[in-house]
């Protein structure tokens, strides 16, 4: 039996409010399945499980504010016996209620202690159980819904009550992220970064003309929806560079650098009117440019429209921030803790450059690498940049 806990979705997150469960107790879950939605400072996030098994028991109900690390549910591994209380033939007394599962150190929340006991062999949601208690309904008289679970609607049907009016339910914030909350999340992460991380910066100007010519030729042959933005090959080059420099790809935890075993590139994405969010494209080094373009488009859509997943917010190993067209020439990016590196790209603009002794007009981009000086030195950052520049200079090889 493993404990499924409230994940940390950023250096700054202390708690999240459970919006809803997408799986009911007794359902089989597979690694990667989205089982719950949690409302955070960065909006509603879909929470995934990281193992196969059966969702054995749910310990939190929608509307509850749950600290990072607290157990949300138990997941039974395949082949593992069910929890004893579920196979018992007779209902156990009151003492078998939810409270024993609450970590001894954590204060039981009022709602957790208010649940009536779970009934062996019957899957009932905590909210439904509480409602049965409030209305003194005998749970054994209730019939499960089509999903095999007794939920609020089944209890409401039994007591003849109208469904809870929408306004009375815990309100999932639409993707309408609260700009104030998001600002606070950014402030907390960046204050931590500037307080804890001794940044160093190395900068190079890179001739992107070969890349832009290659892209233009490629896009000219393509249908409009298959065209690429330079962000896609740029992301691939950055991901390949981090794969090549594993000592810059990872996190700094408990006083030491911990290398990551995959390359998950966080992408700084602006959410209009709210601020920045940095969900990661997982295993970015293993996808070709077209796939990365599709993934990037999808990620931007979900960052703004809803549907970001917990893995995307918690598993980044390095970050790329790309200012884009008509912005500024360069930036000194701030590392997203606990990562140890970030790559910042300014706009591409036509400027004078010297090629074979001649001053010519070229498409130039300034790239800045910021590294955590606890984990690496400027020389290493410069090597990284030089490798990145060589990849960007030969786009056909990407």
């Amino acid at each position, binding site marked *: 039996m493993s404990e499924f806990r409230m994940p940390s979705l950023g250096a700054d997150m202390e708690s999240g409010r459970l919006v809803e469960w997408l799986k009911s107790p007794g359902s089989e879950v597979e690694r990667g399945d989205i089982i719950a939605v949690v409302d955070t400072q960065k909006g509603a996030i879909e929470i995934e499980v990281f193992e196969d098994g059966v969702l054995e028991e749910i310990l939190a109900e929608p509307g509850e504010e749950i600290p990072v690390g607290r157990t949300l549910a138990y997941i039974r591994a395949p082949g593992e016996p069910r929890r004893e209380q579920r196979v018992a033939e007779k209902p156990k007394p009151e003492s078998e209620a939810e409270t024993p599962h609450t970590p001894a150190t954590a204060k039981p929340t009022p709602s957790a202690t208010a649940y009536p006991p779970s009934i062996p062999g019957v899957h009932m949601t905590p909210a439904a159980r509480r409602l049965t208690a409030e209305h003194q309904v005998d749970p054994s008289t209730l019939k499960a819904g089509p999903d095999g679970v007794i939920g609020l609607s089944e209890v409401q049907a039994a007591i003849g009550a109208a469904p809870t009016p929408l306004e009375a339910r815990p309100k999932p914030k639409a993707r309408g992220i609260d700009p104030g909350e998001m600002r606070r999340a950014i402030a907390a992460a960046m204050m931590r970064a500037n307080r804890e991380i001794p940044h160093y910066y190395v900068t190079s100007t890179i001739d992107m003309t070969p890349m832009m010519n290659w892209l*233009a030729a490629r*896009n*000219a042959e393509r*249908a*409009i*929806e298959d*065209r690429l*933005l330079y*962000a896609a090959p740029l992301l691939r080059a950055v991901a390949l560079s981090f794969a090549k420099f594993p000592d810059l790809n990872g996190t700094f935890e408990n006083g030491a650098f911990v290398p990551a075993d995959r390359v998950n590139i966080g992408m700084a994405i*602006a959410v*209009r*009117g709210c601020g920045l969010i940095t969900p990661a494209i997982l295993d970015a080094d293993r996808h070709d440019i077209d796939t990365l373009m599709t993934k*990037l*488009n999808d990620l*931007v859509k979900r960052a*703004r*429209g809803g549907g970001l997943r917990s893995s995307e917010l918690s598993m980044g190993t390095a970050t790329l921030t790309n200012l*884009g*067209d*008509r912005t500024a020439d360069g930036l000194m990016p701030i590392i997203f803790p606990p990562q140890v590196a970030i790559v910042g790209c300014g706009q591409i603009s036509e400027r004078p450059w010297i090629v074979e002794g001649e001053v010519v007009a070229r498409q130039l981009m300034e790239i800045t690498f910021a590294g955590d000086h606890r984990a690496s030195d400027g020389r290493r950052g410069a090597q990284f940049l030089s490798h990145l520049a060589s990849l960007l200079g030969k786009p056909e090889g990407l």
Partner: protein
Amino acid sequence: MAQEYEKIVKDALFSVAPDLEGEEIVPDETFRDQFEIDSIDFLNYVIGLSKATGLDIPEVDYSELESLQGAVAYLRRRKASMGF
């Protein structure tokens, strides 16, 4: 006709940036300057324009589509050249 093109352009823009719906658009100012429209938004907006009009829009023409006024003029010109 101009009104029809204007609606096509606005619909394409608001479908990639629904939060901008209802915003006043300055006709001769670029979307990027008025709103936080980035490259991905812009690409999806052009795809929307292409779908709505059936026009194949080459990348070299993208710069003409950056403002409401520019985009309407572009659509009118392209449609006219097709004999509409």
